[in-house]
C-alpha cells in the first residue's frame, strides 16, 4: 500500500510543480489533471485496503473524475475566452489582479 | 397586511416597481405611480367612511395592528393605529398625493427618480400618521426628509440647493430634539418602552421639570415643521424653489405633521407643562397670524405670498392649540389643518399652472387675466376667497371655530388681536387678486396664455368640491373627530 500512496504523492508533487511553473494556461490545466489523478489513486488505494465493505473511495473517485471533467470544460472555455481577448494565454499575461 | 400597513406599503411597492421600469418609459412610470397612490387613496377614503360609521361614536383607536415585537431587545414594536385625528389627515394625504402625482406629469427630467422619491415620500407621510410606536414614528418622520430633500434639490427652481439644504438641516435640527425627548421618555419609563399609548398615559407622572424639558423639545421639533413663528423661514424658500407638486405636498401634508404631532404626542403627554405654556403657544400663534399676513402683503412673488399665507394660517392652528381646553378650538384646529391642506394645496397647484404657461410668478407682471382666462381665474378666485375665510367655504368654518373656541380659553385680548388677521388676510388676498386678475390686460405680453387644461381641472376639482362641502356642511367632519378630540382634551386637562 505504501508504494501506491507514494506514487500518488509523487504524481501530486509533479502536478503541483506544473501548476506553479507552467507558463501556458493549458499546461496548468493539464497539471491540475495530474493532481486530480494523484488524489484518485489515493482514494482507490484506501478503498481497497482500509475498512472494507464500503465502496466510498471508488465512489469519491468517480465524483472527482466528473468534477475534473467539468473543471476542464470550464477551464478550457475560459482559456479560449482569454485567448480571444488577449491574444495569448501566457499565465503572466493576466496579472490584472496585482495589488 | 392590515389596511393601515397597506397605506404605507403600497406606495413603497409602487416605488420598487417604478425603479424597475426602464427610465425611458415615462408614461408607464407616471401611470404606475398614480396607480400606486390611488390604492392608498381608496383605502384611506374607505377607512374614513368606515371609521365614521363604525368608530366615530367612541373615538377609539381603530384598525390597530400590533403591537408586534420588532426589535425585542429595545422593546421596539410594530404598532399602527388610526383614530379620529389621523383618519382625516390620512384621507387628505391620499388625496393630495394622487393629485400631486397627476400634477407632476409635466416633469420631464429624471422622471423615474422623481416618481420613486414621490412615492417614498407618500409612504413616509402615511407612516407618520399611523405610527403608534415612537421608533416607527421617528423613522417615518425622518424617511420623509430624504425624498423631500432630493425633490426640492433636484427638480427645484434657481436656488434649489440652498432651499433644500435649509429645509433638510432645519428639520433635522428639530428632529434631534425630538429624538432626545424620545430617549428621555424611553429611559424614564419602566419597563422601557416606546409605545406611544403607554407613554401618553404615563407621561403625566413624570417630574415637572422633565415634563417641561420633553415638552419643549417636542415642541421645537413640531414647531419647525408647522412652522411656528419664528421658525418659519425655511418655508418660503422651500415653497418657492420646490416644484409645484412638491409645494402642494409640503403645504398640504407636511405642515400638518407638526400640528398632528402636537395633538397626538406632546399635548396629551405632558398636561402640566402644557398648562403653563398654553399662553405662550397662543401668543406665538397670534404673532404668526398677524406677522404672516403682514409679510404676505409685501410679497411680489405669487408662490411666496401663498407660502407666507401658510404661516398665517398655521398661526390659527397654534392659537387653537394654545386654547386646548376648548373642544371647539381644537376641532377648529383640525378643520384648519384639513382646509388649509385643501386650499393652499389648490393655490399652489394653480400658481403652478400659471407659472408653467407664463414662466414667471411676479405679481406685478400680470394683470387682467380675468378676461383672458375666465375659468382659471374663477377657480383661483374661489380658492382665494376660501383662503380669506369666505363663509360657505372650509376656511371660514375653521376660523370661526377657532376664534369662538379660543375666545373663552385663552387670553381674550390675544384672540381679539388675532381677529385682525381676518382683515389683513382679506387685504393681501384681494391685493393679489386685483393685481393678477383684474385691471388692464396686456395683450401683447400674455396674448398667448392658454386656459387651464383638462388634467389640471381634474386635479383641482376634488379640492373645490371638498372645500365647498366642508364649508357648507361641516357636521360629518366634526362627528368624525369629536369623540377622539374629547378624549384627547380630557388627557390634556389631567
Amino acid at each position, binding site marked *: 500500500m505504501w508504494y501506491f500512496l507514494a506514487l500518488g504523492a509523487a504524481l501530486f508533487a509533479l502536478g*503541483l510543480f506544473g501548476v*506553479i*511553473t*507552467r507558463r501556458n494556461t493549458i499546461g*496548468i490545466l493539464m497539471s491540475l489533471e495530474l493532481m486530480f489523478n494523484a488524489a484518485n489513486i489515493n482514494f482507490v488505494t484506501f478503498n481497497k485496503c482500509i475498512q472494507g465493505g464500503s465502496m466510498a473511495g471508488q465512489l469519491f473517485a468517480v465524483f472527482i473524475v466528473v468534477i475534473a471533467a467539468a473543471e476542464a470544460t470550464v477551464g478550457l472555455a475560459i482559456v479560449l475566452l482569454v485567448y480571444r481577448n488577449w491574444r495569448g494565454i501566457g*499565465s*503572466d499575461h493576466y*496579472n*490584472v489582479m*496585482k495589488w | 397586511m392590515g389596511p393601515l400597513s397597506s397605506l404605507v406599503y403600497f406606495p413603497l411597492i409602487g416605488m420598487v416597481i417604478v425603479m424597475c421600469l426602464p427610465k425611458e418609459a415615462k408614461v408607464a412610470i407616471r401611470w404606475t405611480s398614480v396607480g400606486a397612490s390611488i390604492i392608498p387613496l381608496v383605502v384611506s377614503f374607505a377607512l374614513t367612511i368606515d371609521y365614521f360609521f363604525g368608530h366615530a361614536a367612541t373615538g377609539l383607536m381603530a384598525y390597530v395592528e400590533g403591537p408586534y415585537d420588532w426589535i425585542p431587545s429595545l422593546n421596539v414594536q410594530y404598532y399602527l393605529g388610526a383614530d379620529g385625528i389621523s383618519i382625516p389627515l390620512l384621507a387628505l394625504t391620499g388625496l393630495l398625493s394622487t393629485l400631486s402625482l397627476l400634477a407632476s406629469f409635466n416633469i420631464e427630467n429624471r422622471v423615474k427618480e422623481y416618481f420613486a422619491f414621490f412615492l417614498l415620500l407618500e409612504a413616509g407621510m402615511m407612516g407618520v400618521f399611523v405610527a403608534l410606536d415612537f421608533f416607527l414614528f421617528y423613522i417615518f418622520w425622518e424617511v420623509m426628509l430624504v425624498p423631500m430633500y432630493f425633490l426640492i434639490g433636484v427638480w427645484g427652481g434657481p436656488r434649489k440647493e440652498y432651499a433644500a439644504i435649509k429645509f433638510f*438641516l*432645519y428639520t433635522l435640527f428639530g428632529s434631534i430634539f425630538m429624538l432626545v425627548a424620545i430617549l428621555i421618555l424611553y429611559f424614564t419609563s419602566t419597563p422601557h418602552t416606546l409605545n406611544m399609548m403607554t407613554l401618553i398615559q404615563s407621561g403625566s407622572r413624570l417630574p415637572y421639570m422633565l415634563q417641561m424639558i420633553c415638552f419643549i423639545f417636542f415642541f421645537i421639533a413640531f414647531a419647525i415643521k408647522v412652522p411656528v413663528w*419664528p421658525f418659519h*423661514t*425655511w418655508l418660503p424658500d422651500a415653497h418657492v424653489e420646490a416644484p409645484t407638486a412638491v409645494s402642494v405636498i409640503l403645504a398640504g401634508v407636511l405642515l400638518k405633521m407638526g400640528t398632528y404631532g402636537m395633538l397626538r404626542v406632546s399635548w396629551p403627554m405632558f398636561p402640566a407643562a402644557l398648562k403653563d405654556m398654553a399662553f405662550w403657544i397662543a401668543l406665538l400663534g397670534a404673532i404668526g397670524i398677524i*406677522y404672516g399676513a*403682514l*409679510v*404676505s*402683503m*409685501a*410679497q411680489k412673488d405669487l408662490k411666496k405670498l401663498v407660502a407666507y399665507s401658510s404661516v398665517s394660517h398655521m398661526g390659527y392652528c397654534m392659537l387653537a392649540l394654545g386654547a386646548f381646553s376648548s*373642544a*371647539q378650538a381644537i*376641532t377648529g384646529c383640525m378643520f384648519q389643518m384639513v382646509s388649509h391642506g385643501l386650499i393652499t394645496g389648490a393655490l399652489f397647484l394653480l400658481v403652478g399652472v400659471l407659472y408653467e404657461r407664463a414662466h414667471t410668478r411676479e405679481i406685478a407682471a400680470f394683470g*387682467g387675466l*380675468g*378676461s383672458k382666462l375666465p375659468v382659471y381665474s374663477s377657480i383661483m378666485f374661489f380658492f382665494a376667497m376660501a383662503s380669506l*375665510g*369666505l*363663509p*360657505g367655504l372650509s376656511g*371660514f368654518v375653521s376660523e*370661526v371655530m377657532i*376664534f*369662538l*373656541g379660543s*375666545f*373663552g380659553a385663552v387670553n*381674550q385680548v390675544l*384672540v*381679539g388681536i388675532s*381677529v385682525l388677521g*381676518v*382683515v*389683513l388676510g*382679506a*387685504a393681501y388676498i*384681494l391685493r393679489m387678486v*386685483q393685481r393678477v*386678475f*383684474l*385691471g388692464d*390686460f396686456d395683450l401683447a405680453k400674455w396674448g398667448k396664455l392658454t386656459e387651464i387644461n383638462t388634467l389640471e381641472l381634474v386635479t383641482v376639482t376634488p379640492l373645490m368640491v371638498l372645500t365647498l362641502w366642508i364649508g357648507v*356642511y*361641516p*357636521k360629518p367632519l*366634526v362627528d368624525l373627530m*369629536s369623540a377622539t378630540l*374629547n378624549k384627547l382634551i380630557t388627557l390634556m386637562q389631567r
Partner: protein
Amino acid sequence: MTQTAWIIPFLPLLAFTMIVFFLRWKEKVASGFSIAMIVIDWVLSLIILAEALGRHGASYEAKILLTSFKTFNLELGILIDPLTAMMLVIVTTVGSCVQIYSLGYMKDDPRFSRFYAYLSLFLFSMLGLVLANNYFMIFIFWELVGLTSYLLISFWFEKKTAADAGKKAFITTRVGDLGFIVGLMLIAAYCGTFNYQGVFEKAASGTVPVGILTAAAIFIFCGAVGKSAQFPLHVWLPDAMEGPTPVSALIHAATMVAAGVYLVARSMPLFVTSADASMVVASIGLITAFIAASIGLVQNDIKRILAYSTVSQLGYMIMALGLYGYDTANGEHSAGYVAGTLHLMTHACFKGLLFLGAGSVIHAVHTNDIQEMGGLRAKQPRTAMTFMIASLAIAGIFPLSGFWSKDEIVASTAHHPLFFVLTLTIAFMTAFYMWRLCFLTFFGQPRNQHRYDHAHESPGTMTWPLVFLAALSVCAGWVALPWLEHGFSSFVYHGEPHHAEPEYLLMIVSTLVSLSGIGLAWLMYHRKAISADQVAAKFKPIYTLLYNKYYFDELYDLIIVRPIVNLGNKLWSFDANVVDGAVNGTAWLTVVWSDAKQWFDATIVDGAVNGAGWLVRQSAAGLRFLQSGTLQFYALFIAGLVAAIGLYRYFGISYTPTTTGLVTIFFLIGLIVLWYVSRSIWRRSTPAAAAEVEEHSVRVEDK
C-alpha cells in the same frame, strides 16, 4: 307659505347655479330665468307678509342643527317676524325692479349672463341674511353679501378704479366685520348660543354683566358700521359707485347697506339693555348723517351725490334706532324703532328709484357729471318725472312716503335737543342737495349741447321699473299713517303693539324745513338768484373741505393703509434679514466652526493619522510586490508555506518562547527574501511593469 319660506333664498341660488353651469352662453334664457326666480320670490314674500300680518306680530322659527360641540350648537334656521317679512318684500321688490331694469341697462355688456349670475348670488345672500335666525348664520350671509358686493362693484374689472373700489369695499367692510366677530365671540362666550331668542332672553335675564352686553352690542354694531357705511367706515360707499348703476341701486341703496340697519334693528333687545351702547349707535348715526349730507352739498357726480345721500339717510335710521335703544334703556317711550324701520322701507323705494333714474340719465348722456347735463326733462320726460317724485319723497314732502318716515325720525329725537336741531339741519341739507341735483339735471339750459343732442328716453324695460318704484315711493309711507289704528307701527313694533300719535307741530316744522331747502336750491340753481360760485368762494375753506370729503380717504391712506403696507414691507425685510438672518447666521457659524475643525483635522489629527499611514506605506512599499497578481506565484507561496509547516512539524519543534521567536524571525527573514526575489523577478520579467511600479510609488507619495 311661511313654513316653506326657506325656499326663498334658494331660488336665486338655483338661478346662479344654472347660469354658471348651463346658461352662460344663452344670455336671454339666463336673464329670463333669473328674473323669473326673483319675481316668484317677490310673490312668495308678499304672501309671507300677508301671513305675518295675519299672525299679528307673532314670529315663526324653524331650524336644523348644523354641527354641535359639547357646550354649543351651530344651527341653520329661519325666523319670520314682521321685520323679516318687511325686509323680504323690500329686497325682492327692489331686486325684481333692478333685474328687469338691467335688461336694458346692461344690454350690450360682454358679460351679461355673468352679471345676472352675480345678481342672483347677491339676492341669495341677502335673503339668507334676512331670514337667518341666529347670529352665526347672519354672519355667514353677511360675508357672502360682502363677496357679491365685491364681485359686482368690480364687475368692470378692466377699469382700475372699479377694481380698486371693489377691494376697498371688501376690506373696509371686513374691518367692520372684525368687530362683528369679536361681538360674536363675546356672545358665544357669555350667552352660550347664537340664536336670537336665546341671546335676547339671556341678555334680558340679567345674568350677563352689563359691561359685556355693552361691549357685545358695540362690537356687533361695528359690523353694521362697516356694512351700512357709517362713520368712520363710510368711505367705501361713494367709491363703490364705480359698479354698474343697477348694482348701486340694488346693493348700495336699497338692500345691502340696509343690512346694517337691519342688524341693529334685529339686535334691538340687546341694545335696550345698554344705554351706553345705544348712545354710541345714535351718535355714530348722527355724525354720519351730518357728514355725508354736508359732503353731498357740493359734489358733482350724480351717483356720488346719491351715494352720500344714502350714507346720510342710513345714518338717520341708525340714529333713530340708537335713540330708541337709549330711551328704552332709560325707561322712556320712543318712536325711534318704528322710525328707523319705516325709513328703511321707504328709503329703499325712493333711493332705488333715484339710482335707477340716475342710471337712465347716465345711459342717455354717458357721463356722471351733473355740470354737463341740464334740461333733460324734455328728452327724458318719464325719467325726469319719476326722479322728481323720488326727490320730493326723500326731501320729505307731504304726503309722499319720505314724509311719514322722516316725521317719525324727527319725532324720535324730540327728547334730545342737539339731535333734534341737527336732524332738522340734515333734512334741510338733504332737500337742498337733492333739488340741486334735480335742477341741474333736468331743468335749465343744456350745458353740453353735444351730450344733450344724443340723449334719448330709455327703453321700456328701464322706465317701467321706474314708474313702479315711483308709485311705491308715493304710497309706501301710507302704511304708517298715524291715524291708522293697526298701522305699520303696531305691526313692526318691537315688543308690545304700539300706536303712534300724530304730532302735527313736528310735521309742519319738518315740512317747512324741507321746503326751504328746496326753495334755496331753486333760487340758486334755477332762478340763479344767488350765485352758487359766489357762495362757494365766500366759504372757500369749508367748500374745499366738503369737496374733498373731509379728506377722509387721504387721512386713512396716511394713517392706516400706508403704515400697514410699510409695516408689511418692514416685517418682510425683518423676516429676510433678522429671522432668516439668524438661521443663516447659525449656518454660517457652523460653517466657520467646521472650517476651524477642518484645519485642526487636516493639520494635527490628520497629520498623526497620515504619519501612521506613512509608516505603514513605507513598510508596505516592498511587501506589496508579493501581491503580484500572478496566480502561480500565490500557488507557490501556498505550497511553500505548507511545505514549511510540514518541515516544522516533522522536526517536532516544540512551542517555547525561544523557538517561537526564532521561527518568527525566520518567517520574517523568509518574507524579506521572498520580497526581494519577487521584486527582482518583476523587474526582470517586465521592464514596463517595473516602470509602472516606480511611477505608482511616486504617485502614492504625492498623495
